[in-house]
C-alpha cells in the first residue's frame, strides 16, 4: 500500500504553515528562556544559591526569612569567627518613632558619633558613622557653613553644635529615587535599606538633603573582637561591599523597646527619643513645650527628627 502522492503546492514551499509556526514558537521560547536565565550570568563564585535566589525573588515567607537570617549568621561565623544573632525586627503597632535634640545643651563632644560607629559595626579604617556633628555659628542655621573637623575644647565661644543623622522623613526623597525599591519607609517611620537588594547606584545618597546616607566603597572592616553581635537584618549586620547604608534609629534596639546607642552615649542629655503616638511620651512633651524646628523644612521632607532650644 503506497502513500498518496503529496500535492505540488506543499512540496514546492518546503514547509507547512504548521512547521513555520513551530519554528517561530521555538525561537520565541528560546529567547524567553534566555531572558529568564539572564540573571544567572551574574552568578559568581562567591554568591551562594540562597543568596542568589534572595536577590532575584523578593517575597519571603517567615520560614524563608528565618533561613536567610541563619544563613547570614553562619556566613558571619565563617568569615569572622564571631557568633552573632541577626534578627528581623519588625515595627511595633501603635509606635512611630521621633527623635529630638536640644541644641542649647549639645556641646559637640561627638560621643554620639563614636557610639554609632561601635553599635552599628561601621568600617573602622574610615571611621564611618551615621552621625555628623556640625559646628555652627550662633545666629545661623545654614548647614553648608557647618564645620565637621573642629577640635576642642568644646563648646567654643559663639558656636553651637548640631549633630545631623537620618531624619527619617515622612516624605523621603531617598526612597522615591531608588530604582529597585531596595529602600523604603516602614510603619514606625524608619527608612530602611535591604543590603541584599541594593544595587549601589547611590541615587539615594545624592537625593538626601541631609547628607545622611553612606556608601560602602569596600567591605567594612571590623576587627572580630569589636563586632557587635546583636544585629538586625535591616540595620547593623555586617554590610557587603557596594551597598548603601544609613541610620535606622538603631532599630535592632528600639524595636525591642531600648533606647538608641547615640542617646545612651550623650553625656549632656541633649537627646530625647520616644513614641510620637504616645501623648505621655517625653518626645511629645518636648514638641509641645519647647521651641522646635526641623532641618530644611522648606524642602517638604517632613522629618521625624526635631531640633529644639531651651528658652
Amino acid at each position, binding site marked *: 500500500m503506497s502513500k498518496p502522492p503529496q500535492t505540488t503546492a506543499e512540496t514546492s514551499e518546503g514547509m507547512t504553515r504548521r512547521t513555520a509556526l513551530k519554528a517561530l514558537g521555538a525561537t520565541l521560547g528560546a529567547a524567553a528562556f534566555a531572558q529568564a536565565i539572564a540573571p544567572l550570568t551574574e552568578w559568581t563564585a562567591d554568591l551562594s544559591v540562597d543568596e542568589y535566589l534572595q536577590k532575584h525573588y523578593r517575597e519571603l515567607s517567615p520560614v524563608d526569612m528565618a533561613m536567610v537570617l541563619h544563613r547570614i549568621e553562619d556566613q558571619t561565623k565563617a568569615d569572622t569567627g564571631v557568633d552573632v544573632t541577626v534578627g528581623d525586627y519588625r515595627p511595633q503597632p501603635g509606635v512611630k518613632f521621633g527623635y529630638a535634640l536640644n541644641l542649647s545643651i549639645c556641646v559637640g563632644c561627638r560621643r554620639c558619633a563614636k557610639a554609632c560607629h561601635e553599635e552599628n559595626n561601621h568600617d573602622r579604617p574610615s571611621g564611618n558613622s551615621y552621625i555628623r556633628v556640625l559646628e555652627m555659628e550662633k545666629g*545661623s542655621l545654614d548647614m553648608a557653613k557647618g564645620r565637621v573637623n573642629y577640635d576642642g575644647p568644646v563648646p567654643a565661644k559663639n558656636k553651637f553644635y548640631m549633630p545631623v543623622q537620618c531624619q527619617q522623613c515622612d516624605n523621603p526623597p531617598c526612597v522615591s529615587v531608588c530604582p529597585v525599591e531596595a529602600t523604603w519607609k516602614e510603619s514606625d517611620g524608619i527608612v530602611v535599606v535591604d543590603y541584599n537588594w541594593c544595587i549601589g547606584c547611590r541615587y539615594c545618597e545624592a537625593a538626601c538633603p541631609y547628607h545622611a546616607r553612606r556608601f560602602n566603597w569596600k567591605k567594612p572592616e571590623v576587627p572580630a573582637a569589636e563586632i557587635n553581635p546583636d544585629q538586625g537584618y535591616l540595620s547593623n549586620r555586617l554590610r557587603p561591599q557596594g551597598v548603601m547604608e544609613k541610620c535606622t534609629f538603631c532599630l535592632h534596639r528600639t524595636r525591642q523597646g531600648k533606647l538608641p546607642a547615640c542617646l545612651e552615649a550623650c553625656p549632656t542629655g541633649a537627646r530625647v527619643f520616644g513614641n510620637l503616638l504616645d501623648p505621655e511620651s517625653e518626645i511629645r512633651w518636648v514638641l509641645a513645650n519647647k521651641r522646635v524646628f526641623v532641618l530644611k523644612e522648606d524642602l517638604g521632607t517632613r522629618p521625624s527628627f526635631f531640633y529644639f532650644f531651651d528658652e
Partner: protein
Amino acid sequence: MKLSASFCLIVPGLVLLALAGRWMLGAGLPGQGGGDVDQHDLPPATVPAEVVAARISTVGSVPSHRPDGWQPKVDTGLRDATGASVEVSCTTCHATREPNRANGAAGVLPTKFHPGLIYAHGNLSCLSCHNADDYDTLRVADGGKVAFAQAQQLCAQCHGPQTRDYRHGSHGGMTGYWDTTKGERVRRTCTECHDPHAPAYPELTPIFPPRDAAARQQADRALTETLLPHHE
C-alpha cells in the same frame, strides 16, 4: 513701573523677614545654660518651704546608676602603702567634729580637710546641702534627708527649669528602655554630670574626629583659603 511697584513690596518684606529671623535666632541660640545664673545668686532661704516641698515631690526618686546607699568619698590627700589615694566617708571625720556653720563662701573653706575642693556654686553654705545631723545624707530646706544617690531632689529646690526638663526626660540623659513596659530606664543624678561644688558643665575635648570624604573636602577647602586668601 511694574518693577518698582514689586520692589516696594519685596524689599521691605525681605527686610522684615531678615529682622524677624535675626531676632528669633539671636534670642534662641546664645541660650546655652543661661537659665540658672540668677538662681545661683539667690540665697536659698528665699524659696518658700511649700514651693520646695512641691518641687521635691515632682521630681521624686528615680532608678539611678548609683545604689541607694551610695556616698561620695573625700580624698584625704594621703597615700596608702600601694600608692593609692586614701578616701574616706564624710562621717569618718564629721562623726566627732562639730560642724562650722559659718563655712560656705568661696575662699573660707577648710581646704586642709577637703583638699582639691573647688567651690563655685553661688552663695550657698556647706550646710545648705550637707546634713550636719547625718553626713551620710543631704538635707533639704525643710530639714528632710535626701540620699546622695537621689541628689536631684535637693537640686530641685532652686533649679526649677532644669527640674521640669529632667522630669520630662529632656535633661540629664538616660540609659535602658524608652518603652518602660519592656525594661527599666536608668536616670543620671544631677551630680553624675555636674560637680555639686562647681556645677557649671565643664568643657570637653571632642573625640572621634571624622575621616570621611566630606570632612576631607572641608579640610582641603579650609587649607586653600588659608594659602590663597584672595582666592574666590
